[in-house]
Every structure is written in structure tokens, then in C-alpha cells.
């Protein structure tokens, strides 16, 4: 579903991501972890088609992101850590707008349950400026889910959510994966990664230092056996 090969991204002389390759299949949830400045956001933005890789190929649902960007983008949703919303559109109008962009059918039937799922029904007529940080994040999530994407890319998805929102969001991610979506999730919350992800990719200074399930990673580095994920992460990124 997501196939990344030799992804490299330079900013001037700085190598933000270096020769990164990974694959996320349907139903899989990959956790992307690494210290600040490791290249997580650059990776996510490249996979989402926001920035162009300097080298490498990215395939989304069978479509090459560089050669057939529209087909690839129709299949994916990117949910950033900082919600990007249009200040003059109401909550419901955001969903209708995104539905038109992605040619979503039966909008009138899809919008109400999604608003209900994300507890935004009461705010359907509100502008983003009238929403709390958590509500804005929920709206960004709703915009990402309205077209039922086959590939979900989430950058720190729990930022700003209340405990109920966090629980609901985790359920949503698991449900989407169970329904066949490929999910990439970047987070500093290692317990979240441990709880949800089927595989982990650890980045350090733009390079992959570990990839696979925790068992795979420990198998490759027997010296790390017995460590919890937090200590494992610290040992890999030290």
C-alpha cells in the first residue's frame, strides 16, 4: 500500500532523510519514531506529496507519487500535528469542501455520522476561531477521514485531544487499519506506538537505525534484549 524506496531529501547541504526504504501493507500500522530533527516530518511530508524527494520513489496504493500524483493522493490522507484549517469555513463546510475535492459520493449521508463520531455535531456551524485546540484537531482528523482513505499518514495525532478524544482516536486508527488501511504514525509517545503499531521504524539523523516489529529489532540487536521500548529507543538513537 505504501512503498518507499531510497527516499532522500536534502535542504541545501543538510541531509534531512538519507536512503530510506520501507513498506506498509494493508492493515498495518507503522510507527515512525526518532529524536527531534531525525527526519520524521520530512519523511511524512514526502510520503504525503507535500514536498518532493531529492531522490527515491514513493508508491501509494500502486500509484507512483511522482508520475501519477492525483491517483496516489486520492488514496491518502495526511493529518498534521498542527491543524491547518480555513478560517472562514465552518466545521460542516470544511467537510463538504474536502468531499468535493476528493469527489466523495453521498456527502449528506457521510457528514453527520463523522461529526457525531468526532463529537463535533454541536459545532457544525462554528468557524475554526471559535473552536478549542482539541476541536480543531478533531476537525482536521474528520477532514482526513471523510474520503475513507486507503493510506493514513498521521503526525502526532493525539496532540491537543482530551482523554476521551485520545481513546476515540486510538480506536479510529485501529478500526481503519482493520478495514484495510495502511497507516503511518509519527509520535514521541512511545507507549502509543507500542500499543497501536504492528511495526516500528526508528530514524536518527535522517537514517533508518531499526525497522520491523520489536521482536525483529531485538533479533537484529541481541544486546538490546530485555529492554522496554523506551530504553530500546534511547539505545538505538544514542
Amino acid at each position, binding site marked *: 500500500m505504501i512503498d518507499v524506496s531510497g527516499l532522500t531529501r536534502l535542504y541545501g547541504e543538510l541531509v534531512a532523510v538519507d536512503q530510506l526504504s520501507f513498506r506498509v501493507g494493508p492493515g498495518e500500522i507503522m510507527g515512525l519514531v526518532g529524536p527531534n530533527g531525525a527526519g520524521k516530518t520530512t519523511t511524512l511530508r514526502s510520503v*504525503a*506529496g*507535500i*514536498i518532493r524527494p531529492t531522490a527515491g520513489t514513493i508508491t501509494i496504493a500502486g500509484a507512483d507519487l511522482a508520475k501519477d500524483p492525483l491517483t496516489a493522493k486520492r488514496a491518502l490522507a495526511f493529518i498534521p500535528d498542527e491543524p491547518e484549517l480555513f478560517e472562514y469555513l465552518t466545521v460542516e463546510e470544511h467537510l463538504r469542501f474536502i468531499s*468535493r*475535492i476528493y469527489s466523495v459520493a453521498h456527502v449528506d449521508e457521510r457528514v453527520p455520522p463523522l461529526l457525531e463520531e468526532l463529537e463535533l455535531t454541536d459545532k457544525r456551524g462554528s468557524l475554526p476561531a471559535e473552536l478549542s485546540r482539541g476541536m480543531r484537531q478533531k476537525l482536521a482528523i474528520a477532514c482526513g477521514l471523510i474520503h475513507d482513505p486507503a493510506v493514513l499518514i498521521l503526525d502526532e495525532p493525539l496532540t491537543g485531544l482530551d482523554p476521551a478524544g485520545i481513546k476515540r482516536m486510538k480506536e479510529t486508527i485501529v478500526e481503519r487499519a482493520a478495514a484495510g488501511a495502511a497507516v503511518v504514525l509519527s509520535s514521541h509517545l512511545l507507549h502509543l506506538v507500542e500499543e497501536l503499531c504492528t511495526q516500528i521504524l526508528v530514524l536518527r539523523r535522517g537514517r533508518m537505525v531499526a525497522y520491523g516489529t520489536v521482536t525483529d529489532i531485538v533479533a537484529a540487536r541481541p544486546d538490546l534484549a530485555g529492554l522496554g521500548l523506551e530504553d530500546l529507543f534511547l539505545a538505538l538513537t544514542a
Partner: protein
Amino acid sequence: MRLDALAYLLGRSARNRFRASLARLRKPVYAAALVVGLLYLALIFYRPEGDVAPSPTAYLPIQRGFGLLSAFLLAVLAAKWWIFGASTIPLAFTPAEIQLLFPAPLRRRDLILYRLLRVQISMLVSAAFISLLLWRSRGAGYPLALPLRMIGLWILFATSFMHQMGVTLVRTAAAQRGRGLARNLPALVVVSTAIGLLAYSLAPALLSIHSLGDVSGALERIGDASTKPIPSAILAPFRWVIAPAYAESTHAWLVAIGPAVLLLVFHYVWVLRADAVFEDAAVDASARRAARLRARAATTRPATTNTRTLVRLSPYGPAWSAIVWKNVTAAARGLKLTATIRFTFVLVITFSVWRAVGFQAAKESSPVVLVGLAALVAVAYLALAGPLTIRNDLRADLAHLPMLRTYPLHGRTVVFAEVLSSTLTLTAMQVALLAIAFGTLTEWPIAERFGVLLAAIVILPVVNLMSLTIQNAIALLVPAWVRIGGPLDSGQIAFEALGQRALGAIAALIALAIALAPATVAGVAVTAVVGMSPLAVTLGLAVGLAVAGAELALAMRWLGGLFDRTDPVALTR
């Protein structure tokens, strides 16, 4: 006292901003901007040999008149600030300042002092620039040393800034005590009484200027009336603060500077003492500023909570039309009734003054015809200034570039939809104004009026589309010239920006002329070949529009590629 830390913050910020400006100059396009900016300034200040400066006394009556007019305006502004509220900008801090300085162990007056210091650079630059312009207009005969004029203007700006700050603090305190009107009553009574007395004293002079027929005579008449005891007393503080800026000689400046400095010091002490509700007022002002800047990035209007819908978005149709719908809805929601009222008010006052001082065309025309003429003037004004001020296109949406890039749309499709959004907005405004002109200029034969209206309706959208394509191209080519997402801080001055506006406006006009040339030449040629007849003109128009359409298609293709290649990270640098 942590003033040393605040001074460090100011100094380092200024230094780093300067370094960032220098770093930008490594890019050829920004270096070119600086060169053009310097040339632009040189053109302003260059006086060719043989160009004789006017006599030092030539402008004295007008200068006195404008000095008086400025005192009046300042008095009216002060009254407006006290009754309706002053600008909150003087108390507005950046989000970082709110987050880092407000919880810090700093006294309120330290923060006020910091805010006052932060604005000094832009105030001094403005004072210097205006002084230079005045000096340029008066040449060698300039009667006052440049630094003295600059100090006079700086005192005027600083006092006005602090007055607004003080008014906001007083009004916030009143509002917090839960009895805003009662708390403000003494100030409101004083201000209202002063306005009433001033209007009553000057009414005979104001009503009589209609018969004079010239501006200087009218100003002189009002000037004489204002020397009577009551208006003189009311206007005194305003005259004092303005006097050094308008001084006609070094002696006059020396006489005027004392009272002006006293007023400045009084305001400084007043503001530092009126700090009881500083945090609340500042946080509120900062929130308003942030909302205003966000809105300004999208349009020229302040943020709104208005959710009126012109057209409901249909679930079916091409995806690009959703972007057009979004942007036009944003423009409609940003439109404020008060802005329209203010615009109408300015028009009414302008034409009233024209009539009062004897502007012949204005005196001979009926008010209805004047409305029609004003509408036509506004159409022409919008054709020139509209593309710079109506910005519900890429200039607003580049702030959301990461999100736009995830949409399954070609770059050229996004660019087309964005440009079409502001074109529709601008054209709709022009057509509304043309309709007003059509309905009011009834002395003009209806056939001619209809012909002009029809031609304008056909030609204006194409000219607007081209003009706005150029503005969006500038946004994609040199994003640092354009307000995108994070607008410039009011106190922020990038020195290479000197040429940005000049270069941008000149480049846009030249590009528009070049872009329109092929279509115009083709249209005129076809008309000339077929022969001057209504059919030939129609055919020429059609050919011209077709050529323009082809040009626009090519431009969209190029800009689409540019959009696809634009790095969101580069926009924030």
C-alpha cells in the same frame, strides 16, 4: 528591573533581522529589489540642475492651513478614540512576547516601556522619510533643518501612539469594573462638550466658505475663526503637539518644542501610571492583532464570526470549483458593512468639500450624478489597486500550501481556481459599481451607456484575470515580497523591502502591459482589416479575447509547474 534583558531582546532581534535581510540579498531577485528600491528613492530625491526650488515663503499660507487642518483631524481622532475606542495596536504584543514575557518577573511598566521602545525604529524611519520628502519638495529653500523637522514628527507620532495606549487602558479598566459607560462618563462628557463647542464656534465660518471658491481662502477663513477663545482653547493641545512638525523656521520650532515635549512627557507618565489592567488589555489587543493579521493575509479586512453563505456548495461538480467557492465565501464573510459605510462616508465628505470650496464640476452637478461619477472613479481605482488589495487567492492560500499539496489536483488546476477566485470577487465589485453609474448618469444617452457597460463587462474580467495572474505569479516567484501566512510584524523593517513595493507595482504594471499587448494588437488589427463597424469591433474583441485566453492558458501551465515545485519550507524562511 529586567530592562537589560528587554534591551538585549530588542537589540539582538534588530541585529538578527538585519542579518536575515542581508542573507536574503544573496538571492538575485532580492538584490534586484534593493537596487530598484534605491533607484526609486534616488528618483524621488533627485532634483535636476535648473530645477529651481520654490521660495521659502511660497508655501507658508498652505503650510499654516494644513497645520490647522492637522490639529483639527487630530482632535477629531482623539474624540473618536475616547468615544468609540482607540486602535489596540499600541498594546499588541506578539504571541511569543505574551508567552515568554508576561509570565516572567517583569513589572507592567517594564513591558509598557518595552512596547514603546519596540515601536521606535519604525517611528523614526517614518519621521525621517517624511522629513526627507518635505525637504525634497522645498529644495534649498527649506526653512527648517532636517533633524529638527524629524524630531517634530517623531514627537507627534510618539504622543499619538501613547495617547491611544492610554485611552485603551482607561477604557479597559472601565469595562472591567462592570460599569463601562458610567466609568467613562467624565471623559465622554468632556469630549462631547468640546466637540459641540468647537462645532458651534466654527459653524459660521464653515457655512460661509461655500462662497469663497478656493482652497486657500477657505483654509484662511477657518484659521481666523479658530483663533477665537473657545476653539483656540480646545485645539491648543493638538496645536502644541503638531507645532514642531509644522514649524516654519528654527525660531518657531524652538518656541514650539517646549509645550510639545511637555505633552510627550505627560503622556509617558500617564501611560506608565495607567497600567492597572495592562495584562488584560494587552492580551486582548494581541488577540485582536493576531486575528487582524491572519485576516489581512487573506483579504484586507478584519477577522469575522460571520457565517453567511452566498451559495451553498453542491456535492457534485469539478473539484477546482470547491476552491473557488471557498475563496469567494471567505471574501463575502470578510466583507464588513462598516467598511462600506466608511467608504461611502469618505466619498460624501470628499464631494461635499469639493462643492463647499467651489470645485466647478462638483458645484454644477446634482448629488445623483456625483454618485455616478464616484462609482466610475471607483471602478478605475479598483482596476489598478484591486489586484493588490483583493487577495482571496494564492496569496492567502499559500499559508495552507502543505494541505493544498495533498489534494488530488494538478498544480495548474489549483492556480487557476485560486486566480479565478479573486478575479470573480474584483469583477463583481466593479460590475456593481458600473450598475450604479449606469443607473445614475442618466444625462448620458442610454445607447452609449449600454455600450460602455457591455464592453466593460466583457473586457474587465480578462484584464482582472491577467492582473491577478501576475500578482499570483509574484507570490510564487518571490514569496518574501508577499504577505503569506505569517504577516510582517508592525515593527519589523526589512531594509531590502525598500524596493519591494516599488518593484512589485512597476513589474506588475509592465507585465500587464506586455500581457495585454498581443491581445490588443490582434483585436485592433482585425478591426482595422474588417473595417470600422460594430461587427468589426465585435470580431476584433473576440479575437483579442481568444489571444488573451491562450496567453492565460500558457501562464496557468507555467504557474502550475511552479506551484508543484514550491517548497513549503521555503515560504517560512
